[in-house]
């Protein structure tokens, strides 16, 4: 039996709980990308993001009754589980910046080039993005989460508060502090090459 694309998540989840593999697959396809991006932006590691996405859907498979329709959408539930996994992952990690995401040819993993650049422009832009990525990944987890949700995922404060499970005021304050730290780090990263070239 085919599944209509517009079938609601709750219906899909119930069908998946009864053993409908197609329903589970459709649910996965609907939500995996957003979860993966969030995990990737939070951890800076494609491998970790992959593990987190897998873990989230394994949780859903093992215990679909954990989802309570009265508390929100399936998407929000998955985001919440994903967020917990991300935080656990970050807690386990030593405080270091992952500068991976490099393929064999040196390009960043998942980077999609949409414009045509000269090699010089491309290198400069790549360097700048690397600096921003490093600066984001160096932020403490709570501030990083606020920045990722509001600036990278472009969520509203309300949505971000819902995902993070905290009041809007907390999100605002975390974002404020996160921005300040991020600006300071970017300044510092920009100054390093300047100082290095001045020293030469």
């Amino acid at each position, binding site marked *: 039996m085919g599944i209509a694309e517009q079938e609601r998540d709750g219906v899909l989840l119930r069908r*998946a709980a009864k*053993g409908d*593999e197609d329903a*589970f*697959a459709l649910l*996965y*396809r609907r939500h*995996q*990308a957003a*979860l*993966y*991006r969030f995990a*990737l*932006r939070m951890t800076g590691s494609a491998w970790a*993001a*992959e593990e987190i*996405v*897998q873990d989230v*859907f*394994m949780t859903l*498979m*093992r215990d679909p009754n954990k989802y309570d329709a009265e508390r929100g959408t399936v998407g929000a539930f998955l985001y919440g589980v994903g967020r917990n996994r991300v935080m656990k992952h970050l807690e386990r990690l030593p405080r270091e910046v992952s500068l991976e995401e490099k393929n064999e040819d040196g390009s*960043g*993993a*998942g*980077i*999609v080039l*949409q414009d045509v650049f000269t090699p010089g422009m491309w290198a400069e*832009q790549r360097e*700048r*993005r690397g600096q*921003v*990525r490093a600066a*984001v990944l160096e932020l403490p987890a709570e501030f990083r989460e606020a*920045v990722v949700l*509001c*600036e*990278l*995922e*472009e969520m*509203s*404060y*309300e949505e971000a508060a819902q995902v993070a499970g905290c009041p*809007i005021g907390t999100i*605002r*304050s975390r*974002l*404020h502090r996160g*921005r*300040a730290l*991020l*600006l300071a780090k*970017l*300044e510092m990263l920009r100054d390093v090459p300047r100082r290095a070239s001045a020293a030469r």
Partner: protein
Amino acid sequence: MKCEEFEAIGLDAERDASVREAEWAAAREHASTCSRCAALQDSWQVARIQLRALAEDTDLAQAPARVEMRLRQEFRTRHRTLKVRRAAVIAAWALASAAVLMGAVSWRNWRAGQREEAAKLANSQQMAVAAAGNHQSLAPHSAASEDSLVADNEMNDFTLLPGVLPAETDDAAIVRVRMQRSTLGALGLPVNEDRAGEWIQVDLLVGNDGLPQAVRLLQ
């Protein structure tokens, strides 16, 4: 508006639904008069553009196909195991129900057989009493039937009547009767003349033909 307030709400006032229009206007005005906050706002705008560029790098990112494959595999394994377990439980219940049903039917049949046997025994008892009354001048028929009882089913201590050949006793019935001792003489057994008038209870083994085949004296 002070610089601290501007830092808190001014950088993102247009996206923060809780910031009122008046506060937003005050933030803009503050930025136009305070060079430090204006520079901060500019820096943040640049940083935001860079963040957007970083976001675009991963906007199309999604979990590799192998994740879906692994999850599907796990899903199949999990639900196959569940199905097998469910089938085993159903089979166990079905077997148990069948066993209970068979037991009930067997018990019912056994009970019906018992009842039939009891009815047969009662019939043959009546026939035996009638036959004994006709042939061996037992006690009056009415008295005999009143006094006769269904004896216990043991075949011990029976004495074959003279002229009777040992035969299968499966279909024979045991009938308890009260009669005078002299009646034993009529059945061909030796009787003490002194006690010939004495009333005694005996078990008669009555064959299919309704004739007594053996007798057992009760104490």
